[in-house]
């Protein structure tokens, strides 16, 4: 918690600090706990409602803890025409979850994203910070099994 307070202090009084502060808070906790958002509101001298309003506007912010591995399935145009939907089906089969959900064991969270900008490798999926390209349902399942082991 001390580290969180240091973080708050670092941004205090800086112009345009709301979003970077929320981003760092999320990096710290893995999501935005209500208590933390209230702290942010206090530091930036705005109402909690205003902070919540900003946080909910942007797709990046989460309000519930996520699984240990974040899987982002790209649904950009190139991925869409190259079969991103069948990756969703494969994930549903393998993990039993759909976009926005987390597996019961807390291992994986699934997210649908607009475009990762790796269009020439479509369809792609980002697991943690790593992009996996030229996927098929089968290849994706194998990648997931490797992570599970």
């Amino acid at each position: 918690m001390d580290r969180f307070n240091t973080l708050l202090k670092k941004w205090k009084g800086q112009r345009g600090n709301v979003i970077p502060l929320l981003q760092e808070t999320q990096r710290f906790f893995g999501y935005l706990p209500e208590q933390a958002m209230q702290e942010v509101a206090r530091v930036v001298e705005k109402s909690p409602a205003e902070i919540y309003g900003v946080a909910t506007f942007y797709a990046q912010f989460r309000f519930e803890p996520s699984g240990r591995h974040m899987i982002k399935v790209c649904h950009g145009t190139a991925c869409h025409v190259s079969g991103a939907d069948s990756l969703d089906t494969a994930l549903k089969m393998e993990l039993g979850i759909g976009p926005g959900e987390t597996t019961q064991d807390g291992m994986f969270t699934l997210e649908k994203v607009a475009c990762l900008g790796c269009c020439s490798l479509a369809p792609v999926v980002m697991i943690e910070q790593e992009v996996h390209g030229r996927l098929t349902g089968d290849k994706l399942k194998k990648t997931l099994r490797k992570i599970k082991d």
Partner: protein
Amino acid sequence: MIQVQELLVGLGSCGIAAGARQVYDTLIRELKDRGMKIPVIPTGCIGACHREPLLEVRLKDGSRFLYGDLDIGKVKEVVTGHLVEGSPLNEYLVPEKYDYLARQKKIVLANSGVINPESIDDYIKAEGYTALRKVIGTMRPDEVIEELKISGLRGRGGAGFPTGLKWGFTSSASGVKKYLVCNADEGDPGAFMDRSLLEGDPHAVIEGMVIGAYAIGADEGYIYVRAEYPLAIKRLGIAISQAEERGFIGEHILGSDFFFNIHIKEGAGAFVCGEETALMASIEGKRGMPRIRPPFPAESGLWAAPTNINNVETLGNVPPIIRMGGGEYARIGTEKSKGTKVFALAGKIKRGGMVEVPMGISLREVIFDIGGGIKGDKKFKAVQLGGPSGGCIPERLLDVQVDYDSLTATGAIMGSGGMVVMDESTCMVDIARYFLSFTQTESCGKCTFCRVGTKRMLEILERITQGQGRMEDIDELQELAVNIKISSLCGLGQTAPNPVLTTLSYFREEYEEHIKNKRCPALHCKALIRYRVNPEVCTGCTLCVKACPVQAVQGVRKKPHIIDQELCIKCGLCFEACRFSAIEITTGE
């Protein structure tokens, strides 16, 4: 013994995703084990993304060899065969490299894939920061603006507003404090030009910003980058601190009285923030919602100060323009669209990647001569330009030339540069539905027509793709489209109907097939297709039986299988799994 000058490995996001990091590490280790002292340069995007990971071998006699589709094993073979024994490995070379490049003209991307983006010295060796020296040493701010006007450069973010004019507005606005913002919130799905430029040559964009700031009198700058581009953010951060150390940013730049600092702002995931007023609201820490213009940012922008906003590629054009002179730059391109445009070629195309072409080239040349045409043996159907704000252009209009006005006349737009190629297996009604679902989700909700109108359009499109469409739906789509365009405040709403309008005008028969005959000619829309096994081709190998997630495919070894239509969810996994093309898709039955 061959004399190797240097080795280049493409380490852009695409390259890394394809395994370039492992190739790079293996290469370094192999050279070290053999005691070979050859410089290995990690570069940004080389452009031929369809063959990543890429390695370029440059010999001292000037010859170059580009290897593609590498992996750990192949790179070891290249080291032994080519670097040690001296004979190139023809089977791994990328033969089309030079056709691929011949039709291109690299101005903005001149350094991408050539220099190490994390080394300011490499950039300086490639004439980097000479434009800034020229500007600060020999030009007044108004002369810089004049040079930009002569060059004819127009905004590369999509709208195509003349850059010199824009700079002139901010320059003449009253105010002591002024800002320059670089818009790197590249949100169009299917576009990755700005990412590649930032990853491959970040200093060029920074130099463009410093020159712009000098011209308009700004002392503070922001680069607003998508959070989805971690590598671009990292390389920008490195480049900014290097430029600060060398005195290209900061106080008394190059010994003058000019001050300028740059901050990086990470976006938080909102497409609408690519719109300039929404982007500024986001930098200020608010919800990224657009506001009415006027006042334009040039008069009242970031924290109410005069602000100039340019796209990444626009700024990347500035240093070359200053170096070669506006007049020389204006010789490239067409009468009203000068210079080059970078496109991200993707979709069902053979040679996808980053291309930079002179304005005035035809779409056909870009897709067929540079891109090599359609993947597999399929037929070209359409090319999508400009992402969710753009449109789909059919075969018969492929000779249209690439310039702002000709592309707008087709109903599409130049856009930021995403060019997604579609073949006969792409359903145009589904593409319209896809883009509408994107804009619907990304609408900020401020304007009623954009918020509710896109929702109604999406519902209609969903209905049609599900085989529940009615003929009057087409008229209703058109009516809604017109109203959304005229009643929305910002570009998002004003252009959201474009994908529907262009597909309706060029592919109306596909809509009618869906509605009247309940057929999807592209065999894509799940509700209108069926999978069946052709018993004459099926060998009974059971691969499809194993692939089916819902046990709809049934059968035993060596006997033709069957698909239970009641259970089938039409996921297509059996189709993917079959090695004998025994699974057929039918529609309209």
